């Protein structure tokens, strides 16, 4: 391994290609595995099985078992192994099959990875990436349908990103891998198959800490992240077409750091806000967003900030019940109209 760990770059591919979110993540990992020998992937079924959600498919063949390492089922152990390796300067990418299983490794993430920089007086850092999907909607039931995004975003020492489209999936994952701090990359189960255009340039990264205006509009700001952004964009299209109202969709992209400025600029324009998230809203991400907005935009708001998220129940199995609990386009639309005073 070379001193810097950075290998000679191959002639960069360029151009824009249409691909799924899943493929964009894989592209980001392939590029970074090629670029930097310190990068390696670790997780359950990431190799031989091609990834339980196929995100890492093919990478074992390409890079071998040292770079794409299958682990036993022991999340606490191998997340911690990622922490230790990162402290020595590796760039581990740890895949957690779904965010629900991060609960058994919580101590390594929150009490260890997040503490290293500060607790040791800046003497050592922890450039670890954890990738994991959240979300519900496939009848996976109570223990497998959660989104703990805000818990990690509320932990000083961590950074948290949650891309909502393939281009950002590639760009933010690359940014996370190159970042010198522990970064949680929150993916999402239904989003893996979403398609979009991706600039394949290996040098292109999406900066952490910058929200994006995913759609411009003038009547209402919808603030979302991850799959909720996809939902919000569809509602925006429909409401534009059917009701002639103009929704601006702000995609947070990064939850810590949080780009309050971009949100506030949008609210200054629209004066009305709806926050949407895949998780439970009480004490969730949308709580922080609403709190920030009422503070930053106190004089701009024409109506209280509303929130839509998952119904606050452990997710039930039955299709009908699950659907009733989800932050569906219908519920988002209804809430949007309500904030706009157009409900009823």
């Amino acid at each position: 391994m070379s001193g810097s760990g950075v290998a000679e770059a191959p002639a960069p591919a360029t151009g824009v290609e249409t691909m799924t979110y899943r493929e964009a993540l894989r592209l980001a990992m392939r590029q970074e595995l090629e670029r930097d020998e310190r990068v390696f992937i670790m997780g359950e079924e990431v190799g031989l099985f091609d990834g339980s959600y196929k995100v890492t498919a093919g990478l074992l063949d390409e890079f071998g078992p040292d770079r794409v390492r299958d682990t036993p089922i022991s999340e606490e152990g191998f997340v911690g192994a990622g922490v230790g390796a990162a402290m020595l300067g590796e760039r581990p990418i740890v895949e957690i099959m779904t965010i629900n299983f991060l609960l058994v490794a919580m101590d390594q993430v929150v009490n260890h990875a997040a503490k290293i920089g500060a607790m040791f007086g800046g003497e050592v850092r922890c450039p670890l990436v954890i990738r994991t999907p959240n979300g519900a909607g496939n009848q996976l039931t109570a223990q497998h349908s959660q989104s703990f995004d805000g818990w990690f975003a509320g932990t000083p020492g961590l950074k948290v990103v949650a891309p909502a489209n393939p281009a950002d999936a590639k760009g933010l994952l690359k940014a996370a891998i190159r970042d010198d701090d522990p970064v949680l990359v929150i993916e999402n189960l239904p989003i893996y198959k979403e398609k979009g255009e991706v600039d394949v340039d290996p040098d292109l990264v999406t900066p952490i800490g910058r929200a994006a205006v995913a759609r411009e509009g003038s009547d209402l700001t919808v603030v979302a992240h991850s799959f909720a952004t996809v939902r919000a964009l569809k509602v925006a299209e429909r409401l534009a077409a059917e009701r002639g109202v103009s929704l601006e969709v702000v995609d947070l992209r990064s939850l810590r750091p949080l780009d309050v400025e971009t949100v506030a600029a949008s609210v200054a324009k629209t004066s009305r806000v709806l926050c949407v998230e895949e998780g439970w809203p009480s004490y969730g991400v949308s709580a922080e967003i609403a709190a920030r907005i009422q503070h930053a935009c106190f004089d701009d708001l024409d109506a209280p900030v509303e929130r839509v998220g998952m119904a606050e129940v452990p997710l039930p199995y039955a299709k009908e019940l699950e659907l009733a609990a989800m932050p569906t386009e219908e519920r988002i639309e209804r809430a949007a109209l309500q904030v706009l005073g157009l409900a009823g």
Partner: protein
Amino acid sequence: MAVIDRTDSPLDLDVDDLFGKYRTMFLIRRFEEAAERQYKAARIGGYCHLSSGQEAATVGAVSALEEDDLLVTGYRCHGFALARGVPPEAVMAELFGRANGCAHGRGGSMHLLDVSRGYYGGWGIVAGQLPIAIGMALSLVRRGKEQAVLCELGDGAVNMGAWHESLNLAAVWNLPVVFMVVNNLYGMGTSVERASAEPDIFKRAAAFRIEGERVDGDDLEEVEWAAARLLRAARQERKPAVLEALTYRYRGHSVADAGLAYRTKEEIEERRHEDPLVRTRESLEARGAPLEGIEALEAEVEAEVEAAVAYAEADAPPSVDRLAAGVYAAGSEEQFERMRPGSPAGEEELVFAGGLGK
């Protein structure tokens, strides 16, 4: 503590007894086949883990339970529920997400249960059921009951920290619990050799000075005999133990997995030669059960499974109005009065999109 590899069972079930157990095994196989079909027809959703191939381990162990013993399992649990006597229609209705499912359509494939039969679930986090099982065993001890808990887990679960903590607590506190490791050689696509530094899993019992035993999990009688002995020691002497049953799953990890990326067709074929159904049927025949009797039983079971599917299909889904039912115990409404929609400061749909309480 003794660690025993492959006991030969002196158990010699009489033909009627064996007949009944074969029936349950056959029911499980046919049920799983039906579940797979229904899953592919999109009438069952979520994760759906089948246990075809593991019937002897399942039925053998459950047969060793007394009526008031308790059972706790992981998510690959259809077979265990059926073996414990949960009616196939209640299980199938659960897989369909229907109101008369054994968890009223809220648990699905991974979270079956039947408290009236001492079956306390159906859990989805690998090894998460182990600490719970020891808590149940602790409760039995507190109440001075001579009962035991059988806690099922997979070979992949033995590398989780919860395994270690639970076995240690069970041993330090002398709890009546038998940990039954259904070793089907793989945890998803990872073989036991790649996952466990001690692939002879039963030997890990020694780290807690408790008994560990491995049996041929495709031999119904061997499983039952060993389980009965260990459960008896648990009940009477409060000795926890590990029982490892070597078996194989014929299907993929879940219905969504073809099950071929990490093992060969040949391997699967070879294992099919040890099919516990075939073996048990053979020993039934050897013990003089008439072929027509066996065939009649099989036809009966097939009809039963079809009836279960029909029942599930006809059953109503749970009412959406009661989305939040069960989340909190009866009596909680008052506590939530000031947070709910409808309360003066409640936000529409924020907390409960449906009713609260039972």
